[in-house]
Protein backbone atom coordinates (compact mmCIF):
# COMPACT_ATOMS: atom_id res chain seq x y z
CA UNK A 1 0.00 0.00 0.00
CA UNK A 2 2.33 2.75 1.21
CA UNK A 3 5.33 0.51 0.59
CA UNK A 4 6.14 2.03 -2.78
CA UNK A 5 5.87 5.65 -1.74
CA UNK A 6 9.11 7.22 -0.71
CA UNK A 7 9.62 8.80 2.70
CA UNK A 8 5.89 8.93 3.28
CA UNK A 9 6.10 7.57 6.81
CA UNK A 10 6.37 4.09 8.22
CA UNK A 11 4.63 1.41 6.12
CA UNK A 12 2.54 0.40 9.12
CA UNK A 13 1.32 3.92 9.86
CA UNK A 14 -1.97 3.12 8.14
CA UNK A 15 -2.69 0.39 10.69
CA UNK A 16 -1.72 2.43 13.74
CA UNK A 17 -3.59 5.02 15.72
CA UNK A 18 -0.90 7.59 15.27
CA UNK A 19 -2.24 9.96 17.89
CA UNK A 20 -1.35 7.31 20.49
CA UNK A 21 2.17 6.63 19.22
CA UNK A 22 4.76 6.50 20.85
CA UNK A 23 3.32 3.63 22.84
CA UNK A 24 3.84 3.02 26.55
CA UNK A 25 6.04 -0.07 26.19
CA UNK A 26 9.48 0.31 27.76
CA UNK A 27 12.68 0.62 25.74
CA UNK A 28 13.69 -2.91 24.73
CA UNK A 29 10.28 -4.42 25.41
CA UNK A 30 9.46 -7.22 23.01
CA UNK A 31 5.76 -6.52 22.74
CA UNK A 32 6.32 -3.80 20.15
CA UNK A 33 8.14 -6.22 17.86
CA UNK A 34 5.48 -8.89 18.26
CA UNK A 35 2.84 -6.25 17.61
CA UNK A 36 4.52 -5.03 14.46
CA UNK A 37 4.96 -8.62 13.22
CA UNK A 38 1.27 -9.12 13.84
CA UNK A 39 0.36 -5.98 11.87
CA UNK A 40 2.63 -6.92 8.96
CA UNK A 41 1.11 -10.42 8.92
CA UNK A 42 -2.38 -8.90 8.87
CA UNK A 43 -1.40 -6.70 5.98
CA UNK A 44 0.32 -9.35 3.90
CA UNK A 45 -2.13 -12.18 4.54
CA UNK A 46 -4.75 -10.43 2.43
CA UNK A 47 -7.57 -10.94 4.93
CA UNK A 48 -10.31 -8.32 4.86
CA UNK A 49 -9.18 -5.80 7.45
CA UNK A 50 -12.66 -4.29 7.57
CA UNK A 51 -13.77 -7.60 9.01
CA UNK A 52 -10.85 -8.09 11.35
CA UNK A 53 -11.05 -7.26 15.02
CA UNK A 54 -8.40 -7.26 17.69
CA UNK A 55 -9.28 -8.11 21.28
CA UNK A 56 -6.97 -7.60 24.24
CA UNK A 57 -7.19 -8.18 27.92
CA UNK A 58 -5.33 -6.35 30.66
CA UNK A 59 -1.59 -6.01 30.97
CA UNK A 60 1.21 -4.48 29.00
CA UNK A 61 0.31 -6.44 25.88
CA UNK A 62 -3.34 -5.63 26.47
CA UNK A 63 -2.50 -2.15 25.24
CA UNK A 64 -2.12 -3.61 21.76
CA UNK A 65 -5.80 -3.20 20.98
CA UNK A 66 -5.53 0.49 21.72
CA UNK A 67 -2.86 1.10 19.12
CA UNK A 68 -4.27 -0.74 16.12
CA UNK A 69 -6.43 1.21 13.71
CA UNK A 70 -9.04 -1.53 13.34
CA UNK A 71 -12.10 -2.34 15.34
CA UNK A 72 -10.44 -3.23 18.60
CA UNK A 73 -11.60 -4.05 22.09
CA UNK A 74 -9.82 -3.71 25.40
CA UNK A 75 -11.68 -6.05 27.72
CA UNK A 76 -11.62 -6.83 31.43
CA UNK A 77 -8.83 -8.86 32.97
CA UNK A 78 -8.59 -12.39 31.62
CA UNK A 79 -11.79 -12.11 29.60
CA UNK A 80 -10.40 -11.40 26.17
CA UNK A 81 -11.19 -14.92 24.94
CA UNK A 82 -14.81 -15.12 26.13
CA UNK A 83 -15.39 -11.66 24.66
CA UNK A 84 -13.86 -12.77 21.37
CA UNK A 85 -15.87 -16.01 21.42
CA UNK A 86 -19.06 -14.03 21.80
CA UNK A 87 -18.10 -11.78 18.94
CA UNK A 88 -17.28 -14.71 16.68
CA UNK A 89 -20.57 -16.45 17.47
CA UNK A 90 -22.58 -13.30 16.88
CA UNK A 91 -20.85 -12.54 13.60
CA UNK A 92 -19.08 -15.61 12.18
CA UNK A 93 -17.70 -13.54 9.28
CA UNK A 94 -15.22 -11.74 11.50
CA UNK A 95 -11.56 -12.61 11.74
CA UNK A 96 -10.96 -12.45 15.45
CA UNK A 97 -7.44 -11.89 16.75
CA UNK A 98 -6.75 -12.00 20.46
CA UNK A 99 -3.53 -10.22 21.33
CA UNK A 100 -2.71 -10.53 25.00
CA UNK A 101 -0.15 -11.56 27.55
CA UNK A 102 0.63 -14.71 29.46
CA UNK A 103 -0.76 -13.39 32.71
CA UNK A 104 -4.03 -12.38 31.14
CA UNK A 105 -4.53 -15.49 29.01
CA UNK A 106 -3.18 -18.17 31.34
CA UNK A 107 -3.30 -16.91 34.90
CA UNK A 108 -6.63 -15.18 35.32
CA UNK A 109 -8.01 -16.32 31.97
CA UNK A 110 -6.68 -19.88 31.89
CA UNK A 111 -10.09 -21.43 32.20
CA UNK A 112 -11.44 -19.48 29.25
CA UNK A 113 -8.45 -20.47 27.16
CA UNK A 114 -8.89 -24.20 27.64
CA UNK A 115 -12.60 -24.04 26.90
CA UNK A 116 -12.23 -21.94 23.77
CA UNK A 117 -9.62 -24.44 22.58
CA UNK A 118 -11.90 -27.35 23.45
CA UNK A 119 -14.74 -25.81 21.45
CA UNK A 120 -12.35 -25.00 18.61
CA UNK A 121 -13.63 -21.45 18.23
CA UNK A 122 -12.25 -20.03 14.99
CA UNK A 123 -9.86 -17.35 16.27
CA UNK A 124 -6.17 -16.53 16.45
CA UNK A 125 -4.57 -16.17 19.86
CA UNK A 126 -1.25 -14.37 20.06
CA UNK A 127 0.17 -14.77 23.54
CA UNK A 128 3.12 -12.59 24.48
CA UNK A 129 5.03 -14.53 27.09
CA UNK A 130 7.43 -12.32 29.03
CA UNK A 131 7.67 -14.70 32.01
CA UNK A 132 6.22 -12.37 34.64
CA UNK A 133 3.48 -9.88 35.46
CA UNK A 134 5.25 -6.92 33.88
CA UNK A 135 2.68 -4.17 34.32
CA UNK A 136 2.15 -4.64 38.04
CA UNK A 137 5.82 -4.71 38.97
CA UNK A 138 7.25 -8.06 37.97
CA UNK A 139 5.54 -10.60 40.21
CA UNK A 140 5.83 -14.34 39.65
CA UNK A 141 3.47 -15.68 36.97
CA UNK A 142 2.44 -19.20 35.95
CA UNK A 143 4.96 -18.94 33.12
CA UNK A 144 7.98 -17.83 35.19
CA UNK A 145 10.77 -20.36 34.64
CA UNK A 146 11.91 -22.53 37.55
CA UNK A 147 14.29 -20.62 39.87
CA UNK A 148 13.94 -17.31 38.05
CA UNK A 149 13.92 -14.31 40.36
CA UNK A 150 10.92 -11.99 40.48
CA UNK A 151 9.63 -9.41 42.95
CA UNK A 152 7.66 -12.02 44.86
CA UNK A 153 10.23 -14.82 44.56
CA UNK A 154 13.51 -13.11 45.46
CA UNK A 155 15.19 -16.46 46.13
CA UNK A 156 14.04 -17.93 42.83
CA UNK A 157 10.76 -19.37 41.63
CA UNK A 158 10.16 -22.72 43.37
CA UNK A 159 7.43 -23.77 40.94
CA UNK A 160 7.37 -25.29 37.51
CA UNK A 161 6.03 -23.08 34.71
CA UNK A 162 3.23 -23.93 32.32
CA UNK A 163 4.14 -25.60 29.07
CA UNK A 164 1.78 -23.46 27.01
CA UNK A 165 1.90 -25.37 23.69
CA UNK A 166 1.18 -28.61 25.54
CA UNK A 167 -1.73 -26.99 27.35
CA UNK A 168 -3.11 -25.68 24.06
CA UNK A 169 -2.66 -29.03 22.34
CA UNK A 170 -4.21 -31.00 25.17
CA UNK A 171 -7.20 -28.66 25.21
CA UNK A 172 -7.81 -29.14 21.50
CA UNK A 173 -6.11 -26.26 19.66
CA UNK A 174 -5.74 -26.92 15.94
CA UNK A 175 -2.68 -24.76 15.30
CA UNK A 176 0.12 -24.35 17.85
CA UNK A 177 3.46 -22.66 17.37
CA UNK A 178 6.07 -20.86 19.41
CA UNK A 179 8.56 -18.22 18.32
CA UNK A 180 10.57 -15.48 19.92
CA UNK A 181 10.66 -11.85 18.87
CA UNK A 182 14.10 -12.43 17.40
CA UNK A 183 12.66 -14.91 14.90
CA UNK A 184 10.54 -12.15 13.46
CA UNK A 185 10.14 -13.58 9.98
CA UNK A 186 9.08 -17.01 11.20
CA UNK A 187 6.79 -15.31 13.67
CA UNK A 188 5.25 -13.20 10.93
CA UNK A 189 4.73 -16.18 8.65
CA UNK A 190 3.30 -18.16 11.50
CA UNK A 191 0.82 -15.40 12.36
CA UNK A 192 -0.12 -15.13 8.70
CA UNK A 193 -0.75 -18.86 8.55
CA UNK A 194 -2.74 -18.75 11.76
CA UNK A 195 -4.89 -15.87 10.48
CA UNK A 196 -5.84 -17.89 7.43
CA UNK A 197 -6.32 -21.07 9.45
CA UNK A 198 -9.84 -22.18 10.20
CA UNK A 199 -10.01 -23.15 13.86
CA UNK A 200 -8.37 -22.26 17.13
CA UNK A 201 -4.81 -21.10 16.49
CA UNK A 202 -2.37 -20.39 19.26
CA UNK A 203 0.98 -18.68 18.91
CA UNK A 204 3.25 -18.21 21.88
CA UNK A 205 5.75 -15.38 21.46
CA UNK A 206 8.67 -15.22 23.86
CA UNK A 207 9.52 -11.58 24.54
CA UNK A 208 11.98 -9.87 26.84
CA UNK A 209 10.79 -7.71 29.72
CA UNK A 210 14.00 -5.83 30.46
CA UNK A 211 12.60 -3.58 33.18
CA UNK A 212 10.95 -6.11 35.45
CA UNK A 213 12.04 -9.63 34.57
CA UNK A 214 15.39 -8.87 33.00
CA UNK A 215 16.62 -6.54 35.73
CA UNK A 216 16.11 -9.13 38.46
CA UNK A 217 17.71 -11.90 36.42
CA UNK A 218 20.72 -9.91 35.25
CA UNK A 219 19.56 -9.75 31.66
CA UNK A 220 19.51 -6.62 29.57
CA UNK A 221 17.19 -6.52 26.57
CA UNK A 222 19.98 -7.38 24.16
CA UNK A 223 21.17 -10.20 26.45
CA UNK A 224 17.70 -11.72 26.29
CA UNK A 225 17.81 -11.63 22.51
CA UNK A 226 21.27 -13.22 22.56
CA UNK A 227 19.84 -16.00 24.72
CA UNK A 228 17.01 -16.42 22.21
CA UNK A 229 19.63 -16.68 19.50
CA UNK A 230 21.94 -19.11 21.26
CA UNK A 231 19.73 -21.28 23.43
CA UNK A 232 16.81 -22.01 21.17
CA UNK A 233 16.33 -24.94 18.84
CA UNK A 234 13.99 -24.79 15.86
CA UNK A 235 12.24 -28.12 15.61
CA UNK A 236 9.00 -28.13 13.68
CA UNK A 237 6.49 -30.86 14.55
CA UNK A 238 8.15 -31.50 17.92
CA UNK A 239 5.87 -33.28 20.35
CA UNK A 240 4.30 -30.77 22.77
CA UNK A 241 5.52 -32.68 25.83
CA UNK A 242 9.12 -31.73 24.97
CA UNK A 243 8.40 -28.02 24.99
CA UNK A 244 9.10 -27.05 28.61
CA UNK A 245 10.82 -23.70 28.89
CA UNK A 246 14.29 -24.31 30.23
CA UNK A 247 16.94 -22.06 28.76
CA UNK A 248 19.77 -24.20 30.11
CA UNK A 249 18.61 -27.16 28.09
CA UNK A 250 17.43 -25.10 25.11
CA UNK A 251 13.95 -23.92 24.27
CA UNK A 252 12.29 -25.56 21.29
CA UNK A 253 10.64 -23.25 18.76
CA UNK A 254 8.62 -24.05 15.69
CA UNK A 255 5.22 -25.00 14.43
CA UNK A 256 4.05 -27.98 16.39
CA UNK A 257 0.44 -28.68 15.54
CA UNK A 258 -1.57 -28.01 12.39
CA UNK A 259 -4.79 -30.01 12.27
CA UNK A 260 -8.10 -29.72 10.50
CA UNK A 261 -11.05 -30.06 12.81
CA UNK A 262 -14.64 -28.83 12.50
CA UNK A 263 -15.00 -25.47 14.21
CA UNK A 264 -17.39 -24.48 16.96
CA UNK A 265 -19.80 -22.70 14.60
CA UNK A 266 -19.90 -25.58 12.13
CA UNK A 267 -20.60 -28.14 14.81
CA UNK A 268 -23.24 -25.92 16.37
CA UNK A 269 -24.99 -25.39 13.05
CA UNK A 270 -24.89 -29.08 12.27
CA UNK A 271 -26.35 -30.09 15.62
CA UNK A 272 -28.72 -27.29 16.54
CA UNK A 273 -29.63 -25.79 13.17
CA UNK A 274 -30.12 -28.65 10.73
CA UNK A 275 -31.68 -27.47 7.46
CA UNK A 276 -35.02 -29.23 7.97
CA UNK A 277 -35.54 -27.38 11.25
CA UNK A 278 -35.26 -23.94 9.67
CA UNK A 279 -38.55 -22.27 9.04
CA UNK A 280 -37.50 -19.75 6.44
Amino acid at each position, binding site marked *: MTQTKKSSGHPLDGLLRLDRIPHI*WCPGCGI*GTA*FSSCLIAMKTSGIDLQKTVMVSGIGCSGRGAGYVNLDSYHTTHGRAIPFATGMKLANPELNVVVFSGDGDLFAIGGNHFIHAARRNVDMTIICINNFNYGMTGGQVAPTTPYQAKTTTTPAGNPERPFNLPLLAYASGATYVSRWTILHTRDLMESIEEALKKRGFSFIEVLAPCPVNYGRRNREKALDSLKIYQERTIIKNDAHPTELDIDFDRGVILGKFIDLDQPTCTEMYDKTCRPKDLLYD
Partner: protein
Amino acid sequence: MEFWRIPLDADEIQITRGIVHIIEDRCKGCGYCIEFCPKEILEFSTKFNQKGYHPPMVVKPDDCVNCHYCEIICPEFAIYSVEDTMNMEKAQG
Protein backbone atom coordinates in the same frame (compact mmCIF):
# COMPACT_ATOMS: atom_id res chain seq x y z
CA MET B 1 29.65 -9.78 -0.99
CA GLU B 2 32.15 -12.43 0.13
CA PHE B 3 31.42 -16.06 -0.52
CA TRP B 4 33.22 -19.14 0.71
CA ARG B 5 32.29 -20.84 -2.54
CA ILE B 6 30.90 -18.66 -5.28
CA PRO B 7 27.40 -19.68 -6.33
CA LEU B 8 27.15 -20.61 -9.99
CA ASP B 9 24.57 -17.96 -10.69
CA ALA B 10 26.29 -15.20 -8.73
CA ASP B 11 26.54 -13.00 -11.82
CA GLU B 12 22.86 -13.17 -12.53
CA ILE B 13 21.57 -12.48 -9.03
CA GLN B 14 20.51 -8.93 -8.55
CA ILE B 15 20.92 -7.54 -5.08
CA THR B 16 18.30 -5.02 -4.17
CA ARG B 17 19.44 -1.82 -2.57
CA GLY B 18 17.54 0.02 0.06
CA ILE B 19 17.34 3.42 1.67
CA VAL B 20 16.85 3.42 5.43
CA HIS B 21 14.51 6.00 6.90
CA ILE B 22 14.61 6.69 10.63
CA ILE B 23 11.83 8.48 12.46
CA GLU B 24 14.11 9.74 15.19
CA ASP B 25 11.58 11.04 17.65
CA ARG B 26 9.87 7.66 17.96
CA CYS B 27 13.11 5.86 18.88
CA LYS B 28 13.63 4.66 22.46
CA GLY B 29 17.21 3.57 21.91
CA CYS B 30 16.86 -0.18 22.47
CA GLY B 31 19.58 -0.87 19.89
CA TYR B 32 17.89 -3.91 18.30
CA CYS B 33 18.26 -2.58 14.75
CA ILE B 34 21.91 -1.75 15.33
CA GLU B 35 22.73 -5.13 16.84
CA PHE B 36 20.83 -7.29 14.39
CA CYS B 37 21.29 -5.50 11.06
CA PRO B 38 22.83 -8.25 8.90
CA LYS B 39 25.02 -5.74 7.07
CA GLU B 40 25.86 -3.75 10.22
CA ILE B 41 25.10 -0.43 8.62
CA LEU B 42 23.66 1.28 11.71
CA GLU B 43 25.24 2.85 14.75
CA PHE B 44 24.10 4.92 17.71
CA SER B 45 24.35 8.61 16.93
CA THR B 46 25.66 11.06 19.47
CA LYS B 47 22.72 13.42 19.25
CA PHE B 48 19.59 13.18 21.38
CA ASN B 49 16.04 12.96 20.16
CA GLN B 50 13.05 14.73 21.73
CA LYS B 51 12.77 12.10 24.47
CA GLY B 52 16.47 12.06 25.27
CA TYR B 53 17.46 8.79 23.61
CA HIS B 54 20.22 8.32 21.07
CA PRO B 55 18.55 7.26 17.81
CA PRO B 56 20.49 5.12 15.32
CA MET B 57 22.12 6.61 12.28
CA VAL B 58 23.12 5.03 8.99
CA VAL B 59 26.90 4.80 8.71
CA LYS B 60 27.17 2.66 5.58
CA PRO B 61 24.18 3.68 3.45
CA ASP B 62 25.47 1.87 0.35
CA ASP B 63 25.42 -1.53 2.06
CA CYS B 64 21.69 -1.71 2.76
CA VAL B 65 20.11 -4.63 0.90
CA ASN B 66 16.54 -3.68 1.77
CA CYS B 67 15.91 -6.80 3.86
CA HIS B 68 13.41 -4.94 6.10
CA TYR B 69 14.74 -6.69 9.21
CA CYS B 70 15.18 -3.40 11.09
CA GLU B 71 11.64 -2.52 10.13
CA ILE B 72 10.19 -5.71 11.63
CA ILE B 73 12.32 -5.88 14.75
CA CYS B 74 11.92 -2.22 15.73
CA PRO B 75 9.39 -2.19 18.57
CA GLU B 76 8.70 1.50 18.06
CA PHE B 77 7.78 1.71 14.35
CA ALA B 78 10.70 4.12 14.07
CA ILE B 79 12.76 2.69 11.21
CA TYR B 80 11.94 1.38 7.76
CA SER B 81 13.61 0.86 4.44
CA VAL B 82 12.37 1.46 0.92
CA GLU B 83 13.78 0.03 -2.25
CA ASP B 84 16.36 2.14 -3.99
CA THR B 85 15.45 1.57 -7.61
CA MET B 86 18.04 4.04 -8.88
CA ASN B 87 20.95 2.11 -7.47
CA MET B 88 20.42 -1.55 -8.37
CA GLU B 89 23.71 -3.34 -8.49
CA LYS B 90 24.75 -6.72 -9.69
CA ALA B 91 26.35 -9.05 -7.18
CA GLN B 92 30.07 -9.12 -7.27
CA GLY B 93 31.58 -12.59 -7.08
